[in-house]
């Protein structure tokens, strides 16, 4: 395991959520809010990729909702949570909601608890995937592992969006 402790900031905050039985984290700086999707109507966008579940009207703003399972081709065989949440992400004025099963907490992860994932663990997420360690839900539980999604993987990841951009080129 190669140690990569030279992450610029001392301690980062992550929002921790559940997706298809995995625990994952997103840097808090990218998160605008968390909503309960049950109270929103999803409208499909014609001609949109399948991982885009549609758009919602969030207080007058139209925000696309991305199905994280479909987008990352991840845990598609597992049953869907019946009360999905969406984490609304914002970067450079672009906004979208990431549909996840459950949002748990906001955790501080010190740099020494973040490391690169072992190379063989590939699941269509980050190339250089980081794993963090956080304490268990209860004090008696042991440390848990969290897959950390980076800004790059969420907003310009090489997987799903590369198809988007290639299509755009074809269209233009």
């Amino acid at each position, binding site marked *: 395991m190669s140690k990569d402790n030279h992450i610029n900031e001392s301690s980062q905050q992550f929002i921790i959520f559940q997706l298809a039985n995995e625990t994952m984290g997103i840097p808090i700086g990218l998160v605008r809010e968390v909503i309960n999707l049950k109270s929103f*109507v999803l*409208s*499909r*966008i*014609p*001609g*949109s*990729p399948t991982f*885009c579940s549609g*758009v*919602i*009207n969030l207080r*007058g*703003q*139209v925000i*696309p909702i*991305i199905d994280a399972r479909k987008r990352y081709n991840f845990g598609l065989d597992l049953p869907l949570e019946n009360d999905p949440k969406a984490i609304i992400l914002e970067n450079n004025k*672009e*906004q*979208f909601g990431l549909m996840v099963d459950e949002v748990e907490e906001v955790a501080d992860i010190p740099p020494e608890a973040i490391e690169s994932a072992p190379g063989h663990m590939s699941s269509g997420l980050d190339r250089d995937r980081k794993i963090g360690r956080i304490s268990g839900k209860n004090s008696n539980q042991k440390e848990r592992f969290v897959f950390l999604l980076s800004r790059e993987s969420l907003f310009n990841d090489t997987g799903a*969006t590369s198809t*988007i951009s290639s*299509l*755009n080129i*074809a*269209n*233009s």
Partner: protein
Amino acid sequence: MQEYRDLFFDEVNSSLDALSELLSKLRHDPNNKNFINEIFRIIHTVKGMAATMTYNSIAKLCHKFEETLDAYRKNPEPVSEDILDILQRALDTLFNLVELISDSAEEPQSCYVLADKLSKELENLVERSSEKKKKELLINQSAPTKVEVSIEFQKDCAMPCVRAFMATQLLERSGELLSSEPASSDFMDNPDLLSQGFKLIFKPKESLDTIHNKLQKISEVKLLEIKVLEPSDLSAEQSEMAEAVAPTPQNNPEAVKNPFQNLSEKQINELKAGKFKLFRIKLMLSDEVLNPAEQFQNIVKSFNDYLGQIVESYPSLAEIELRVKEHQAMHPLFEIVDRESKIDLHQSRELFKLEFILLINADPKSILDFMQDACELSKIQVDEIKLPADSTNQPTDTGTVDSNLAQIQSDLAKLSHESSEDTNHKNTHDVKTSFVRVNVAVLESLMNSVGELVINHNRLQSALGDVQDTETRSIMQYLHQVTTKIQQQVMSARMVPINQVFSRFPRFIRDIARSLGKLVELEIIGGETEIDRLMIDELNEILTHLVRNAIDHGIETADQRERFHKSSRGNIKLQAYSQGNNVFITISDDGRGIDTDNVKRKAIERGLLSLERAEAMSKEEIMDLIFATGFSTAAQVSDLSGRGVGMDVVKSRVSSLGGQVSIDSLITQGTTVKLSIPSTISIIQALIISHQGGWYAIPLSDIREIIQIRPLEQIRKLSNCEVMVMHNQTIPVIKLEDYLMVENVYCKLRSEDDTALVIMVEHHEKPIGIIVDSLICQQEVVIKPISNRANMQGLINGATVFGNGRVAMILNTERIIELYRSDKRMQYSPWGTERSDDDSWHFVLGK
């Protein structure tokens, strides 16, 4: 000072853009003094701004620029090509300087090098022309050497000292003032000294009658005499003329007291009938105006064009004319210096004031608007003058009016004037303060908030639903009015004249044409057409592309053109006009045009269409091939005459603005590209439809007609297409569900009795139908953009939110039709052999 930096660059850049446009105009019309004056004014402003910011290189170059141009302001000669060229280069350098300075915090040393180089070139030119000037001056020096002028003022003359001072100033300009009696320093303190008259001795540089005319302009003068002290070669005739006694000027500086006196009977009757209105307009020009008299003349002239009539004015029309002539004779720089010095303030103020009575059929607001457009004002006041109540006693002939009656009338008029002055306070504008620069971001957020307001208003309306309470209803009604008004105003604040884009082209075209060795002329029409500022940048890129194409591929070289018996100069026309919610922009050239056979051949070579299909295609369809992806590259590699470089990109960009593009061309005659884009891209009128459980919005501007049909009965299958017959025409229809690519959760079977709607839209001037389930309403919708991430195929132009929180997609019909056509093209069609004679079939078949 640093906080003004951004503002400075903003201002200077727009000024330089304007200059660049004006220079090209001047090139076409090198005699037009208006252009020269305008350029002069702008460069003067830039100089001032740069000096304030201590960017001395810019200021210095501007100064030289001014000097160079100055020679031509009074000179009747047209500005020569080489001067224009050097001015253009100076302007380019100014652009460079601004860029250099904006890139670095300080003014880099290289700026001075650049500025000096150009300054030298300009200086050389100025020297050459000033030598010429001197020679001319010598020729004109046949005026007498010494002259005595005596002036006597009227007894009740207001402020004689000022008038005496005006005279001194005038003479100083027209020659060398040797002495005055009493001396100017004395009479300023003690005006009584002037009661015995005022004598000046001076050496004139101009002929005596011009001086005489100038002095006559000073009002309330009883006697004006010009005597030659040392006889010279001046002819006796001239001196005699000069000795004429000045008539006491009629015009009182308080001006125009009884407006009705000068009206004819007919005019008064028309006034009574309410056909016309009488206005008293007082205005003061901004002191940046270089030639106030000329401005006045323009104002007067333009009112005559608008069917108005100037009944009376102070200064009088004749005097204005005189001033224009005088101004042309005067040294302009001299005047600017004078104006800036405080001593001359009073006189210059007088020069900038105009008061007149206008008979016109218009309301005060439109006059005000008109005036503000027409000239640079610092102050304007428009008052309506009401007819006196006792208007039946209006004189039939002003000459025979009983003096008492006239007195009463003039009092009445004064009264009504005064009362209207009181009530019409809002018509008194200080034009200078009525414009504010607004940050685009503020405008954007304002627009967003207004969008929210509209949405929430709609929400409130649907939440209240059937509340029949009259109170609530009237509140809602009022709220609706206010909302609509705010929305319109914010929208109009976002609109800018399309000239912001067009103005960049004269230069651009000249540069390209020069580099390609072609002669090209540009014609711009309809630059005042307004368009959403959000579209400006995008439009600029699109037009740049099209214009470059036109020069590069359209316009031939001069000898080629001559061979075709065309004028050696190619012509490119940029035209804009608005119609409904759309703005149309055409780019036409008179170049070689597009050879349709060539296009066809190329398309077949590229495998874009089969030989049989190509034969059956109409001209428009062939032209359309130019927009096909994959066609462009072919055109680029080969030597295919005509255009096509990246036209697919143009098309997709236009369509991302919600617009359409078409191309028309006649071989050897030229090509016209026509863009149609919505004038605004944030709020549109749309038809809301429901289709298979989802709501969609279709821009009203796309829709030609809506028809109710029974789909099972009326829709027929024709090969692989659904068609219907309407107005005796076979029209292809699109099943929306095929292109929405939404999982069909609500899909229902259609029965014989079910009805559906066909929305007729136009594609390349041919109708095509879209079948939808039902109509919800027609409504104004706020367009919310959707990120490309989720809108990969561009089938929608954004989304909109309804009062009930529902989101509807705004369909991009153009894109849907395109997709439909390319789908049908791909599928196998057996139609090659069974062609019908009916023309309209080709449409179905060809695609």
